[in-house]
């Protein structure tokens, strides 16, 4: 059985590219409910200048790994790629690629100029239909951006074949826990594939739950300053951090709204309970949205900014509730057994990811935004803190596999529950947050 998949147009404005893929349809392969990966030939990009060979190979390695990580593509090994490629503009001899069972061909070139600029061009071909998919793409930028260009190639292929949004050219921020001193925890940032790790805080203070603002530049998080929880903001471009001045008292679990206008956080009141408060980021004014004598925490704001989901132990154990972000009654949406924690509203607004604790096991799950159709994707000793990929098709979370002393590590999983992948980091890792697509 075959499945028609729609191809959408894409644009690469940030790197001075030539965008535009036309809308087309290709045949994907779905058999018995299981997706068979497409067979992809992606020979080394042609070097159009002598010193471009190295970066061409590196670009190939990165976008190959991106595509493999989806579980949707099988990259035909280089030694099997016997057909003659020819120059970039030369016509593809489809019959030669068909002979080695190629379904998708990615053909590209790299030119490196004397000023350090590289220009990457590529085209995608449906080998069986013997036609090009779209009109090809040109990326141009400083050579130091080669990894981003590789991710954009993977995004273009993924987007064309699946019809889903891009997500490889993005970043993940997380808590890096020192392998030799677990008390030392720093906020770290890396590319979506785990490359280019750098640390944003020194490790002097314990830090929790960093979250990207929608500008992909600011990260809001909780720090234990002098043993007390405070909401902090850090600019990842320069490392400058500051407390969120409008908050007084103990505050934690902050999130910034998608439009960047306000933030929500938990604030400990005089009675020791945790309220959800809203702060206007321009005026600094704050108002209490949820105050009910319980622990209300982990707010996650819907993409339209109108509502938020949060966890509360109002009923005696943690459950998920949804409330208007301008104030109003909260409605409980979780109804199953166990405790529901760390909700995250999806970028499309239709789903909520969460962790669930039941019978001493943790699960990552998803449900509709109204709480219906709950589905558990994982099980482990600890699976916690889900965060969405920018296209809403994958979730990153951290896991302790078997016991409390296991090292926390990051994993990603597709919404289908298939294709769980470890994201390797130099230190132990927890509390991930995925940025939006980079511009």
């Amino acid at each position, binding site marked *: 059985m075959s499945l028609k998949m729609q191809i959408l147009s894409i644009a690469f404005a940030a790197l001075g590219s030539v965008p535009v893929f036309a809308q087309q349809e290709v045949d994907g392969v779905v058999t018995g409910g299981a997706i068979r990966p497409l067979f992809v030939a992606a020979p080394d990009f042609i070097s159009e200048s002598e010193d471009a060979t190295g970066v061409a190979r590196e670009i190939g390695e990165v976008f190959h790994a991106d595509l493999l990580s989806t579980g949707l593509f099988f990259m035909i090994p280089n030694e099997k790629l016997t057909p003659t490629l020819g120059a970039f503009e030369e016509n593809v001899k489809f019959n030669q690629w068909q002979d080695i069972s190629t379904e998708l061909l990615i053909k590209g070139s790299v030119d490196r100029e004397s000023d350090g600029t590289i220009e990457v061009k590529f085209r995608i071909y449906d080998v069986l239909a013997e036609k090009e998919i779209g009109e090809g793409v040109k990326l141009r930028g400083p050579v130091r951006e080669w990894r981003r260009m590789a991710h954009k190639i993977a995004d273009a292929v993924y987007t064309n074949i699946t019809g889903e949004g891009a997500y490889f050219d993005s970043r993940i921020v997380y808590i890096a826990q020192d392998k030799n001193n677990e008390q030392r925890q720093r906020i770290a940032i890396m590319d979506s594939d785990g490359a280019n790790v750098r640390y944003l805080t020194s490790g002097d203070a*314990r830090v*929790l*739950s960093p979250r990207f603002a929608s500008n992909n530049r600011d990260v809001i998080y*909780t720090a*234990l300053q002098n*043993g*007390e*929880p405070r909401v902090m903001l850090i600019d990842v471009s320069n490392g400058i951090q500051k407390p969120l001045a409008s908050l007084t008292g*103990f505050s*934690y*679990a902050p999130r910034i709204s998608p439009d960047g206008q306000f933030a929500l956080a*938990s604030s*400990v009141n005089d*009675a*020791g*309970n*945790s309220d959800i408060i809203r702060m206007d980021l321009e005026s600094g004014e704050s108002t209490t949205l949820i105050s009910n004598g319980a*622990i*209300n*925490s*982990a707010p996650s704001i819907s993409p339209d900014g109108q509502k938020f989901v949060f*966890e509360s*132990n109002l009923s005696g*154990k*943690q459950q998920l509730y949804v409330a208007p972000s301008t104030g109003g009654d909260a409605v409980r949406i979780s109804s199953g057994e166990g*405790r529901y*924690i*760390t909700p995250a509203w999806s970028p499309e607004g239709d789903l909520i990811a969460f*962790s669930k*604790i039941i019978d*001493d096991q943790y699960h990552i799950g998803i449900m509709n935004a109204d709480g219906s159709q709950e589905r558990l994707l994982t099980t482990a000793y*600890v699976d*916690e*803190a889900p965060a969405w990929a920018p296209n809403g098709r994958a979730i990153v979370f951290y896991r302790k596999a078997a*016991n*409390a*002393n296991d090292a926390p590590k990051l994993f990603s999983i597709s919404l289908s529950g298939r294709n769980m992948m470890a994201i390797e980091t130099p230190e132990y890792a927890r*509390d991930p947050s995925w940025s939006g697509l980079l511009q």
Partner: protein
Amino acid sequence: MKKTVIFAILILAACGPRNVIPPTNQIPTTPIQTSNITATPIILFAEDSADLTSSAKSQLVSAASLLSKTAQSIRIIGHADAEGSREYNLGLGAQRAAAVRDILVANGVANTRISISTVGNENPAQNCESAACKAQNRRVVIIAG
């Protein structure tokens, strides 16, 4: 599930202007006393609860009696085990600290001398598996100094 409530009281020596009880591997079952005494209880809680048991309350009444005779500032820090999320546990630690504060105030300790804080599960007494061991992390530490 682990529902055992464990309770202990320590009487530690005041060794300076501020006495901080470090994470302990074993909670003594008998009070420690020196010539310079400050009441510094560690109160333990049931899982996912900030409720004080009746015996815990009576122990805190005794502690309040000692603390009300001094002018020391009192800091109450709430802790949690690692069950639940790190953020939730900050809230749970705050509730536990507030519960202990309220008993002390009700028994004569001036509210103005007391500050509460929470570190959630960020500073466990133990990294361990057993229910009895995890229970030691569900605690409130009182620092007088």
